């Protein structure tokens, strides 16, 4: 029970940077899930600021068998992808996703926030409830904010777990996103003459606007 010690000590001095780095290392190593800066800070003695430690730590693990990766706002230690073949025993059997599920996932990722109707428009076919459920269950997509259009439809966005699973720092790092946007393929182009209401969003930026420059 060295409970009160670190807290009391922290009232007097903040641990030196090297010590903070060790702490961040221990905290992140211990967690299988990515941890946000706030979560890390919450675990450290009062007065610590792990942001700098994260930077030095990331550098320290560069090229190692384990690396410190960014996942959205969070960080996690992950084995280097080039060593994956050594871990085949740890590999978890993934349920094979249906084509519909894979495509729906990609559409959510590239078009988020996206409504079910929009997904159906893109795929040209109804999205079955099971497909969406499966992706939600995998914690790869989740409900986003409602669209401020008639009917206030819900939108879908990808989760941090999705980023973690596919080794993406952020949704902006999706492969080919820039090209798709440049080609106008992420635009919500309504059918000419169709009565689609103008998509006056409440300022939500979709993936097509993510790279406003």
């Amino acid at each position, binding site marked *: 029970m060295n409970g009160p010690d670190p807290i009391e000590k922290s009232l007097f001095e903040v641990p030196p940077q090297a010590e903070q780095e060790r702490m961040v290392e221990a905290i992140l190593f211990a967690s299988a899930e990515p941890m946000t800066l706030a979560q890390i800070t919450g675990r450290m003695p009062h007065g610590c600021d792990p942001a700098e430690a994260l930077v030095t730590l990331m550098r320290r693990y560069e090229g190692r068998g384990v690396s410190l990766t960014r996942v959205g706002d969070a960080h996690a230690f*992950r084995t280097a992808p080039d060593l994956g073949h050594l871990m085949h025993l740890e590999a978890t059997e993934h349920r094979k996703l249906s084509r519909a599920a894979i495509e729906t996932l990609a559409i959510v990722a590239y078009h988020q926030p996206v409504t079910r109707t929009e997904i159906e428009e893109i795929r040209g*076919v109804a999205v079955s409830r099971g497909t969406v459920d499966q992706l939600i269950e995998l914690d790869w997509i989740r409900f986003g904010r409602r669209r401020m259009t008639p009917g206030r439809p819900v939108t879908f966005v990808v989760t941090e777990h999705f980023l973690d699973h596919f080794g993406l720092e952020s949704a902006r790092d999706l*492969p080919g996103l820039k090209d798709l946007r440049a080609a106008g393929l992420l635009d919500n182009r309504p059918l000419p003459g169709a009565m689609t209401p103008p998509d006056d969003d409440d300022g939500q930026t979709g993936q097509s606007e993510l790279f406003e420059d």
Partner: protein
Amino acid sequence: MPEPLPEDWTQPPRSPTERLADEALIVDVDGFEGPLDLLLMLSRSQKVDLRRISVLQLAEQYLVFVNRAQALRIELAADYLVMAAWLAYLKSRLLLPPEPGDAGPSAEDLASHLAFQLERLGAMREAAARLMGRDQLGRDFFARGIPETVERRKTTTYTATLLDLMRAYARIRTRDEFRPYAFDRENVFTMEQALERLRALIGHLGDWSDLVSFLPEGWDASPARRRSATAAHFAAVLELAKRGDVSLRQSETFAPLMLRRKDGA
């Protein structure tokens, strides 16, 4: 609506290989994820960039496909037939010069939108493939195998003060006193006692005097005793006034209650 399919899809004589390909397609009909998917597949046979695709030709291909499926008595889902009807309409619009006064989008706009949809679907499909081709957690890279669980030690301290304790006890005892109203005689001055005292005192009463001045000694120290004595004396003077022994006077509400002996009493 899909029944009277336009008559102009009459097929040119086809080579056996083409026919085989067609049949393969038709057998595969369950494998398509809707009409757009089918169109995308058909468009591939044009072997051009989707942007330069001939929508007219694509419409024809689609209608042929649907017709053959129907000829083979393969049941197509409604949306395939809806698409067929729409493509038939589009095809006729593309072939005929626009009628004067034709409102709405032009046939070219509709065609280019269809091309856009196909291109977009194709792009999403490639994106999906690229996504699934990425290194994946639990397959190509791994999280810590022995995560160390963070122990949440929640210490709950319960607080209570002596006052809380006494209040609680008082609460219980007060509940008790509802039942047999056991008087604490020691701290209660009764009206009978007050009457007796006052009767003895008013004989000596000259001018108006404050009721409070009649309170017995030792009963003004604690609020409870004081309250009890005041109430008893108040009730007693009311009784005396009723009998005509004393007069009462109060200049205003809550002002001191004054009394004096009634003349002739």
